């Protein structure tokens, strides 16, 4: 089933970490397997936030010498960054297997991403000037608590509670998906994409990389590819409704935008609240009411509806 949610503040920053946690916790019943956040803080000039992991949570239980292996993989990532000339100004161990680095780098992000992911077990969760992408097994309060999102201030974000139907229960298959290798773009999705393999093979022939077998990852690759070609987010979302088959509602964030697209059957739910100060949308109104407890006017976007809001 899965639950998705997003919000964007139109007049400055807010406690987006706590707001997204509350929204996703209210959607816990739609997907108990994993929870993910893509939240956007204040970008700093010439600085990027790199989030990556070197193991899955389940690896900690099964593999012999995994702790030693995690340390080895992390050292390998550090060495790779050093070789590429990446300056790391802050290092944070979010968990034993997931890390947050603040970096300065003026080279090609694709080169950086490809070199890091060449290391066995290493996967980049996100790179961006404002984007922080966090995802792990457990409900929203568990993941938010583990990664310390309660104090995070920013302008906008999206999130996802996952009920695994198409692929495994692991971080690799959890949403949001970062739109490799482009900065600050993330996607969450509720639905099924029926021409996933056909489109994935087309993208792979063009050199795009997929890290999971989750159909939702296709949307991230699709959006990234079209934005790279110079399309606006709105144009990209509209095009996706024609080219992607299946039933879906998905949300996309860039460093200063939040977008929404709904398939031609309108088969997946979305409730929208819009005011002068903020826009909030979610699979169920209870998620919006988790941050706006008083009575509000909401409505369901229609089939093939595309909306984009600016921070």
């Amino acid at each position, binding site marked *: 089933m899965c639950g998705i949610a997003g919000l964007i503040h139109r007049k400055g920053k807010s406690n987006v970490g706590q707001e997204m946690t509350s929204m996703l916790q209210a959607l816990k019943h739609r997907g108990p397997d994993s929870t993910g956040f893509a939240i956007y803080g204040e970008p700093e000039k010439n600085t990027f936030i790199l989030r990556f992991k070197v193991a899955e949570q389940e690896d900690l239980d099964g593999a012999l010498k995994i702790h030693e292996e995690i340390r080895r993989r992390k050292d390998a990532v550090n060495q790779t960054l050093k070789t590429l000339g990446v300056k790391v100004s802050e290092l944070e161990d979010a968990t034993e297997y997931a890390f947050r680095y603040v970096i300065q780098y003026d080279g090609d992000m694709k080169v950086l991403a490809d070199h890091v992911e060449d290391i066995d077990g290493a996967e980049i969760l996100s790179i961006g000037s404002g984007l922080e992408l966090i995802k792990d097994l457990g409900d929203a309060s568990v993941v938010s608590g583990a990664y310390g999102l309660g104090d995070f201030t920013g302008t906008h974000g999206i999130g996802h509670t996952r009920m695994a139907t198409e692929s495994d229960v692991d971080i690799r298959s959890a949403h949001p998906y970062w739109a490799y290798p482009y900065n600050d773009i993330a996607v969450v999705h509720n639905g099924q994409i029926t021409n996933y393999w056909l489109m994935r093979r087309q993208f792979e022939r063009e050199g795009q990389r997929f890290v999971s077998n989750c159909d939702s990852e296709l949307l991230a690759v699709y959006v990234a590819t079209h934005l790279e070609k110079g399309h606006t987010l709105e144009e990209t979302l509209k095009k996706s409704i024609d080219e992607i088959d299946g039933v879906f509602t998905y949300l996309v964030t860039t460093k200063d935008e939040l977008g929404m697209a709904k398939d*031609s*059957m*309108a*088969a997946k*739910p979305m*409730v929208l609240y819009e005011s002068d100060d903020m826009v909030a949308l979610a699979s*169920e*109104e*209870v998620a*919006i*009411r988790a941050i706006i*407890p008083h*009575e509000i*006017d*909401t*409505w*369901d976007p*229609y*089939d093939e509806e595309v909306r984009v809001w600016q921070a």
Partner: protein
Amino acid sequence: MAGVNTSTDIGHEMGLHTEPLKGRDIKTMFSLENEGGFAYAFAPDVDFNKRGSVDCEGKEATEINGEIRELIKSGHGTVVLDNPGAKHSIIVGILHRMNFIVNGSLGYFGCGLLDGPMVRISGRVGWSFGENMMAGVCVVEKNAGSTFGAAIRGGDLVCKGSVGSRTGIDQKGGTILVGGDTGAFSGFMMQRGRMVVCGNAGKNLGDSMYDGTIYVGGEIKDLGVDAVPADLTDLDKAWLTRKLTQYEMMPKSGVDHFTKIVAGKQLWSYDNLEPSEKKLVL
């Protein structure tokens, strides 16, 4: 079930259907003459003037519905719900006449499986509101989600705002009134009853409808398979005027501009089916 007989005539007299049925007829009807009237044998004796309330704040749906049932048991014929907070599956399976006043919004599957109560909701409702309603009245003052009035068999289901997609999917009777717009696939596989949309209708309106009537005051994006326009008669106009006036939804421009959509009946040869086969379809 109290007050029930198996007369084959009452249904026709009440105008529930007009086509001649052949062969075996197994429908059962409530009798006007019986003391029980239109009530089930197990219907509680409630006083409409006895009012109780439930504060939904911090409560799960099961707890809220349990409190409602306790109030009914103690004879309350009017129940007020405060702070419903868009919670799901509230006011379900009420099979007798009584009043509900909801101060706020409901979530998904609100007012499902109703047979008799009158419900007024000041806010909006989520997906599948009023699903499978048999009788009664539900009035929603704001917007509603998709599959509004799915498979209803009777009663009046009213949304004064706009509704989502697939409104009245599998509608088997009753009336759905929408003050604003409706989304795609509204009236999909409609089998009986009437749907009125004062605003615009999305694509594939009335797709694969067997029977029933859809009236649209605004623009129709396109019609579904076997849905065809029909002449808006004086009887249609009179009925529309009465219904829309009753719920204070009458457009300033009147009802003359409404488009009437019915089944072309080319798809399933529904009218050639025996009653037992129709029962399977329905």
